[in-house]
């Protein structure tokens, strides 16, 4: 008997009755003894199911309503009030996202590097900056929109423009990028820092060559969050970037992002079907940007690994 069970022939594997396998019956017995843990299981399982269901429902609903409205007209090169093309908005959204990130990422990452690597622990200034960043991250975006309008659009006299929109959004996503980057830097093991300093590398080289590459996935997660907010933003953009229907050809011209475009279409009430179509485009765009970011993250990960 003993000899048989030791055999590792593939045919035998199926017949092995592993004693460490927990059967349904055993599980039920243990839940009977601890009804609270069964209750807990039901609650968390139900939460997961409801959350997933809500998300899937919205996605499926948008797709069902939107896909039939994805006509060639919707992607015409130029917008007019007949075709309500979203092509200019797609390009504007991509350009706006790039501009915003170019402004926000260097400052956000730079500030995070200061907080995590240079500032002394327990420094009062650091605490104030952190509290402010957390507060700013929670402020409704319309407040940023209002500030952007008063400051960039009027005080600096940029008008409704790509620049005003990008700067407003940059301020909006700055706390997110800063906080996630700081978290990512803090989780880099100190042993990496010690190893680098121990080889005679200075602080700058240690940060650029060792710490930032290790923290890259976390930093990119923050950037992806920021991209999500930028692409989905309307309130902060209507009074800064405006809602001109063409391509924003230079930094001082107005344009509308895809989300604003959708908002306007829905608001006017004349092109609800096209608004659904635009929603599908927005969904695909966000999905595309996230996939691209994940790809970049993987590439960077491979490079260092």
């Amino acid at each position, binding site marked *: 008997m003993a000899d048989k069970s030791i055999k590792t022939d593939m045919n035998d594997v199926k017949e092995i009755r592993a004693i460490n396998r927990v059967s349904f019956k055993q599980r039920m017995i243990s839940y009977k003894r601890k009804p609270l843990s069964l209750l807990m299981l039901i609650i968390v399982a139900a939460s997961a199911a409801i959350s997933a269901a809500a998300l899937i429902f919205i996605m499926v609903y948008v797709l069902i309503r939107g896909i039939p409205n994805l006509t060639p007209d919707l992607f015409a090169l130029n917008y007019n009030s007949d075709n309500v093309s979203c092509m200019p908005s797609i390009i504007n959204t991509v350009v706006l996202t790039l501009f915003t990130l170019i402004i926000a990422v260097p400052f956000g990452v730079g500030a995070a590097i200061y907080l995590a690597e240079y500032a*002394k*622990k327990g420094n009062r200034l650091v605490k104030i900056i952190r509290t402010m960043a957390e507060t700013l991250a929670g402020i409704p975006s319309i407040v940023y929109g209002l500030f952007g309008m008063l400051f960039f659009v009027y005080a600096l006299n940029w008008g409704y423009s790509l620049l005003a929109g990008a700067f407003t959004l940059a301020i909006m996503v700055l706390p997110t990028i800063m906080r996630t980057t700081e978290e990512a830097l803090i989780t880099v*093991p100190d*042993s*990496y*820092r*010690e*190893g*680098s*300093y*121990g*080889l*005679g*590398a*200075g602080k700058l*080289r240690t940060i650029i*060559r*060792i710490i930032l*590459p*290790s923290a890259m996935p976390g930093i990119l997660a923050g950037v992806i969050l920021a991209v999500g907010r930028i692409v989905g933003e309307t309130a902060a953009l209507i009074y800064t970037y405006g809602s001109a229907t063409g391509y924003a050809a230079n930094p001082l011209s107005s344009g509308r992002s895809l989300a604003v475009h959708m908002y306007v279409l829905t608001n006017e009430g004349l092109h609800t079907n096209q608004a659904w179509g635009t929603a599908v485009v927005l969904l695909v765009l966000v999905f595309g940007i996230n996939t691209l970011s994940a790809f970049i993250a993987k590439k960077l990960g491979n490079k*260092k*690994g």
Partner: protein
Amino acid sequence: MEKFAIDNMNLYYGKFHALKNVNLHMEQNKITAFIGPSGCGKSTLLKSLNRMNDLVEGCKITGEIKLDGEDIYGNMDVNILRKRVGMVFQKANPFPMSVYDNIAFGPRTHGIKNKKELDRIVEESLRDAAIWDELKDRLKKSALGLSGGQQQRLCIARALAIKPEVLLMDEATSALDPISTGKIEELCLKLKDNYTIIMVTHNMQQALRISDNTAFFLLGEMVEYNSTDAIFSAPQDKRTEEYITGRFG
């Protein structure tokens, strides 16, 4: 010849007096071992020798530490000091990059860019650390995929790649299996022809096997310092004798 000279050195972590009036002169091309129970300050002393304690907030040092007669807490550039005094840590800490880049990090830091030169240094360092044969086909693979013993020898190779004069080893074998430990001990004996090695160890057999001189520490004090043979066969201080015969610690 004398390599490191520590005179009247005191070290405080905040209000805690961690090292008390340490005087210790260490010879070139010898292996010096620091032994003593946990918390006696031997690792702290080791880290003072390449100024890694600078990273610890609230750490204050008084007295004098000289490398080849030059005050390391004086005008010496700390990055140059750490190039001259390399370190291997208790827990292997390879960077999350390829084996090759791990070794090349130090030389690149100190300005070597030539690809051929780097190739040569990488091979030489890995050979010196007795791990070239195991890793020569995996130079481009991540260092994090290596076994614990390989990682530690990689870290030794990484330290050797910048051609230090002194190698500090902070319980470098405490997390390794006996076979890896044996390899690293052999390595140390080979390396002392060209390097001065200062090691902290919890393993008294290890100190006995490979070190030339041994210093015994207790509660922040250096109790006794002598040739390893003398320390283990005829300790002068009663506390040393009690420790090495296993009566406390």
